[in-house]
């Protein structure tokens, strides 16, 4: 009788629990050169990688078709951004930022910044540039006391935002493009009006640098996380801390809200080195309840939400990139 009750309770509790879908590899992309940096478009339609042979390769997803290869002409260019329509941005260690339109292998424009985050850190901070959702404006986070907002495709500088002396590490536009959220190397989160560049609000609840940053779907909250091993939700109008998830097992390297706003995902960075695998996580945004956690077979080089609402993560082996549907 006792056995029957335990079994019934177990079945009931399993039925009640939200069981995440199985993790499956949805595409394998062949590479002929070792991948250094890798990024996914925010809508999951493109993936691009800067490789050991100093070429940048771009594929379509989910087909996994190689679309183009760009010769960087000897530059040690680390990838900075892949837009939803396939535009690319890469940066050299000397601060030269190069932009390519979706189909052209010739650079659309180049900008020389005094300092840009060294290529080795892109893996820890894939949010060092953000394209507005309209596709017209580019915010470039850099290791200087000013941040550039430029127009695409002209590359014309529109305005600069004042940053802490160490620079900034993460930037995101709200979905209506009215706000820019910036994570400073001083740990302070700043929210600006994107039309004027004026500071609207700031939050000082994190002590370390933010590497992941995003806006909620309705733009009312900013989520940020980084070296503090926590994710904070901040009121975008006042900067007030609303809630916190954590402590987490490791440093937050990337954060992204799903297209429908219902889920928040994170890619963690192993604090003992970026070459060590670390968990990827998905939470229910409203409740903060964790709905999926997975330690990939290798370092999660890139991650994003697909248009149909799946959380995609990419790992690499010497000859291939593996695209996983985690949630």
């Amino acid at each position, binding site marked *: 009788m006792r056995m029957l009750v335990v079994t019934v309770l177990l079945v009931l509790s399993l039925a009640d629990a939200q069981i995440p879908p199985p993790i499956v590899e949805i595409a394998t992309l062949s590479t002929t050169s070792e991948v250094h940096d890798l990024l996914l478009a925010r809508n999951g339609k493109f993936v691009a990688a800067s490789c050991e042979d100093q070429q940048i390769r771009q594929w379509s997803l989910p087909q996994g078709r190689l679309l183009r290869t760009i010769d960087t002409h000897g530059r040690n260019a680390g990838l900075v951004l892949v837009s939803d329509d396939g535009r690319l941005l890469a940066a050299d260690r000397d601060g030269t930022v190069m932009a390519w339109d979706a189909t052209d292998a010739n650079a659309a424009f180049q900008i020389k910044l005094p300092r840009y985050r060294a290529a080795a850190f892109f893996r820890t901070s894939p949010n060092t540039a953000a394209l507005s959702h309209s596709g017209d404006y580019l915010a470039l986070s850099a290791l200087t006391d000013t941040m550039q907002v430029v127009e695409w495709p002209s590359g014309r500088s529109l305005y600069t935002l004042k940053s802490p*002396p*160490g620079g900034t590490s993460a930037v995101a536009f709200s979905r209506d493009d009215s706000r820019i959220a910036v994570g400073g190397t001083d740990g302070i989160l700043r929210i600006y009006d994107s039309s004027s560049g004026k500071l609207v609000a700031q939050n000082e609840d994190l*002590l370390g640098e933010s590497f992941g940053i995003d806006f909620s779907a309705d733009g009312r909250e900013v989520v940020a996380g980084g*070296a*503090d091993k926590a994710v904070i939700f901040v009121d975008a109008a006042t900067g007030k801390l609303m809630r916190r998830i954590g402590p987490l097992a490791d440093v937050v390297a990337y954060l992204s809200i799903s297209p429908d706003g219902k889920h928040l995902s994170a890619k963690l960075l192993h*604090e003992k*080195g970026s070459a060590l695998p670390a968990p990827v996580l998905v939470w229910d945004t409203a409740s903060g309840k964790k709905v999926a956690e997975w330690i990939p077979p290798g370092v999660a080089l890139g991650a994003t939400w697909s248009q149909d609402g799946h959380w995609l993560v990419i790992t690499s082996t010497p000859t291939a990139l593996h695209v996983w549907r985690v949630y």
Partner: protein
Amino acid sequence: MPKPPLTRRDMLLKCAALGSLSVASPFSLADALDAWERNAENKSLPPTPWCGIGPFYKRHAPHAGRLRAPGDPGLPLVVSGQVVGTDATAIADATIEVWQTDHLGHYDVDGYRYRATLAANSSGEYSFDSVMPGHYPGRICQHIHYLVAAPGYKTLITQLYFATDPVFEGDPDKNYTRDYVITSRELVRSVTLTGDPKDIHAAVSFPLVLDRL
């Protein structure tokens, strides 16, 4: 054939070699000779080169000059120097934040081990007691991060490196570019070992030169 006259630097080096010139710690002979030459020629000092802040800065580090706790493993290390402006004037009210890994190359991101906020004294001098940092897995060379601020001066963000780092294979002049983050040879400092074999410790001088706003 007459010998060319000695340069001032050659003359000073000769004096040092013959014992008629000595340099007190914490300055190296090279630093002292540079300063002498600059004074003689009324030249301004070049500011300390910038070097990236790195991903693990943390606000509100404790005000303590002793980062090494009793019994901490690793080679004890004392770093000292003077904070000056490019006109060589001592900056008395400089604040120096330092952070580094432990001897195994691990940053403490949960707490404040091997992190400190220091205040320069009335002569602009600072020092702290730590351990030789290990090699952080994401980086090539051992290093200590600095963030130096003073009213009226540009904030300096830089990193200190060690000439004894095995990465340089004993020749930092030739090999300092092996770590592409290192922006200048000047940031790689010589290491002096003192004490007896049972209680050895390292000392490094790292002067800091700030640019005026």
